[in-house]
């Protein structure tokens, strides 16, 4: 039962990576990146590595996604106001 669940999660990881690479909107791929971090957190925990799971939850799906979002917002803004420079 638990092996089936783990296999389903791995397949979801494959689907998520394909989706992250193929979505045309950058914001969508950042949101999918959150989901990738969450699923891999559960997988690390199930493989009895709580240290790595905590790191993944904090850094992978928390901090880096927020930093990516901030960067995305700033670059979008820069594109809109790009007429005044170069």
């Amino acid at each position, binding site marked *: 039962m638990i092996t089936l669940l*783990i296999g389903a999660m791995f397949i979801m990881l494959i689907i998520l990576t394909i989706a992250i690479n193929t979505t045309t909107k950058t914001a969508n791929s950042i949101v999918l990146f959150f989901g990738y971090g969450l699923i891999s957190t559960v997988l690390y925990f199930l493989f009895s590595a709580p240290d790595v799971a905590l790191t993944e939850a904090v850094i992978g799906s928390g901090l880096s996604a927020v930093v990516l979002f901030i960067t995305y917002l700033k670059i979008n803004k820069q594109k809109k106001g790009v007429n005044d420079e170069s």
Partner: protein
Amino acid sequence: MMSLKKDIPLYNIVVYFIVSVMTISLLLLLGYLEPTSNSIGGEILKLNTHTTQTANAVTSVVAYFRSLDTLGEITILFTAVFGVSLMIEKNQKFKNILYHENNLLKIGIDILFPLIILFGIYIILHGHLSPGGGFQGGVIIASGFLLKFLAYGDDFELSHKIVSILESISGVAFIVLGLLSLLAFDIFLGNILPLGDITKLFSSGSIAFLYLFVGLKVSAEITILIQYFIKIRKGENGN
């Protein structure tokens, strides 16, 4: 970035191929996983009980058996933050994000902020007893400050001076502990304090103190990094 994705489909195909091969190999490995086999992990687990007295074996690997690598990691993080700050400081193009005042967000984050900081301090102090440690706790503290920046915008700002003093003191203390053990026992970053009882808070000698300094340094660095990312400078923004 988007046009690059459309222009090079080969890149996508290579990425899918690598990810699926890795996933399939992990699935195949599921049946063959055995904890504490007769590899180096089992040896470290055996050594752990009578050399370091840490309840969490991962911490004793990070802060005792491989503490020189931890020093390298801290240096890498410091260099990364230094580079990012130099790059953002020089680049005039990025604009500030527009903030909309939201009282609900402010009140909620005011309630959550001390709890998050307390949880981060707990994770740092109990690094040698439970999962977690300096790196994770430091990033949790920094994420508390990140929420504060998001809610308050320009009203909340940490002074660079205090944060950099905290960071340099903790970095120097890490190396001083290592040098003291080099003077005493001829081992760099060894154990110089009494070991104490396992599963007590004051156990495992200087491992707990090394991880405390790592946590302080990481939290200061990541907080300053987020501050650089969120707000560039005052006065120049085109809002």
